[in-house]
């Protein structure tokens, strides 16, 4: 025994060591609980990231659009309406009013990482006898590609866009019989046409998108669609994807635009994610509770078994505070030891499961997310759970009357 180590720590460790079997069983229980929590949390995080990636690959987290064009009834006088029927007007392609100001203001909002202007419209792409209707997205690569990560999905070429260049989906290129470096003719409904060279081909993992999406430089799209200097949308990237709806409402309230978050446009998907998070939280809470009760039960038994020891310790000058700490430390150590092993088992199990379960094409089903922060939080929470679970038994031990305790 070393006097440099507080007596409470020495006694706590010795008591745990002496009750080896009891200690081993409760650590096993904590290990299983923590391993389940780590496995489930990391698995669900990975699946969620995968789902989010799929949803947010080809669409921004918040999209700003011009306000709807609304027909207003004519008033013959202050009270009488001249024409009671207001026909809904056609939604022409119009620019966001003062889009530069809106973009700059939004880009400076807290939580917003990037805002990119785009010009969207429809066109017909032809090459030889082949032609396809496509959605043309006019973008500034520097601001747009950090939001929609087209460079990550390029199968050929590069993600640069000069005024005479175009990037196409792989399926669209196949349908047109075009390859990298070929030229295509792009014609808008207005009759404007432009010849563009294919500099990149991408695969978003979605056939419909690969068949119908194309990217050109912003100026090229503006010129093609007859909207010089205009943009039809501003794509916004934010730090916390789950804050998208709140931020969208803030943006819409402060600017003359309509703001649509990915949460609103993918309401069912978002509800599924929320349900998944809730069930995961519930599972963690119940596992945590069962671990806590397990620790408390073992320590209550330990207090009863050691009541004579407690009495003797009190007789030889151990204070109630020291007795309290001896049992609190035991709870904390049990939680920490079980959590360390549980983290290793949970992480190991997930790595094994990750290698076992693959998609049909052999790619991973979900990204392996084993973040240091998750382990730190798990270790901290498990230790805290151990301490809290030990509180009642420790108080009971500290309150023991030495005479009664020695008598047993």
């Amino acid at each position, binding site marked *: *025994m070393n*006097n440099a180590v507080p007596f409470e720590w020495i006694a706590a460790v010795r*008591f745990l060591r002496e009750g080896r079997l009891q200690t081993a069983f409760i650590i096993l229980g904590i290990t299983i609980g923590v391993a389940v929590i780590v496995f489930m949390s990391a698995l669900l995080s990975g699946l969620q990231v995968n789902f989010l990636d799929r949803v947010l690959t080809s669409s921004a987290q918040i999209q700003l659009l011009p306000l709807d064009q609304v027909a207003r009834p004519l008033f013959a006088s202050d009270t009488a309406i001249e024409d009671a029927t207001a026909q809904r007007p056609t939604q022409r392609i119009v620019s966001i009013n003062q889009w530069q100001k809106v973009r700059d203001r939004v880009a400076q909002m807290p939580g917003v990482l990037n805002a990119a202007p785009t010009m969207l419209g429809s066109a017909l792409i032809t090459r030889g006898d082949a032609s396809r209707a496509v959605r043309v997205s006019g973008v500034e690569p520097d601001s747009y590609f950090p939001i929609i990560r087209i460079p990550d999905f390029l199968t050929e070429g590069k993600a640069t866009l000069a005024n005479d260049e175009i990037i196409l989906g792989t399926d669209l290129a196949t349908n047109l019989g075009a390859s990298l470096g070929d030229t295509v003719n792009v014609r808008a409904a207005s009759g404007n046409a432009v010849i563009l060279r294919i500099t990149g081909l991408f695969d978003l993992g979605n056939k419909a998108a690969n068949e119908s999406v194309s990217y050109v430089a912003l100026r090229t799209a503006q010129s093609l669609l007859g909207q010089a200097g205009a943009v039809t949308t501003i794509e916004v990237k934010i730090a916390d994807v789950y804050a998208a709806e709140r931020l969208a409402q803030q943006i819409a309230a402060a600017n003359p635009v309509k703001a649509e978050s990915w949460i609103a446009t993918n309401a069912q998907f978002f509800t599924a994610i929320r349900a998944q998070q809730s069930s995961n939280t519930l599972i963690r809470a119940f596992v945590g509770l069962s671990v806590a009760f397990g620790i408390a039960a073992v320590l209550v038994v330990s207090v009863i078994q050691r009541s004579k020891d407690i009495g003797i*310790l009190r007789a*030889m*000058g*151990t*204070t*109630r505070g020291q007795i309290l700490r001896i049992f609190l430390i035991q709870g904390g150590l049990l939680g920490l030891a079980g959590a360390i092993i549980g983290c290793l088992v949970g992480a190991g199990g997930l790595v094994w499961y990750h290698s076992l379960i693959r998609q049909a094409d052999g790619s991973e089903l979900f990204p392996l997310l084993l973040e240091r922060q998750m382990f730190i939080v798990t270790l901290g929470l498990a230790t805290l759970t151990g301490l809290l679970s030990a509180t009642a038994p420790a108080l009971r031990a500290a309150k023991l009357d030495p005479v009664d305790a020695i008598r047993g």
Partner: protein
Amino acid sequence: MHLEGIRRSYNIGMPSEIEILHGIDLDLHRGEFLALMGASGSGKSTLLNIIGLLDRPTAGHVVINGIDTASLDDAAITRLRGHAIGFVFQEHHLISAFTALENVMMPMIVDRNGGSDAIRARALGLLEKLGLAHVGENMSSNMSGGEQQRVAIARALAMQASLILADEPTGNLDSQSADNVFDFMRQLNRDEGTCFLIVTHNLELAQKCDRIITMADGALVPV
């Protein structure tokens, strides 16, 4: 130690209220070797608990080294008990998670009384004095009853307490071991000047003490 008008009642204020000790006056002096005798239920253990500051009297004063313990809070009482009083029980009550040497070191570790080396040296010295140097690293389960009780005595002496309270320390030992343990206590009393108050039913042993205090029905019986 000076005890004056010590009374101890249980179930106070209830119909079942009962007074175990009825105003006990007693003085214990350094270097004394006393036997406390009495029939079961006479209040010996209750008195011993009060003298050992494990229990508080309902009325009366316990004064140790000039300090009236009635004015002390639980922490101060615990501290005083750790420094001034050592206990030897009928069962050895060694803490099984520790070796014999560690059991002897324990009161000094709890009190953080000196460095590790000094504590270890004192504990080893006590074990040697009691002829137990060879069992220092043994757990209590690997020692005989007599050895266990002598380790318990060494533990009681670790803090150089001025008073050792021994509650039937030889009660569970065979006569040979009992004689040995008793002789050890007597020897330590002479060498260290430590006051021993020994509760015993063994008249033969009691007669070897300097003084015999007899209790009956919660009061001291005049000899």
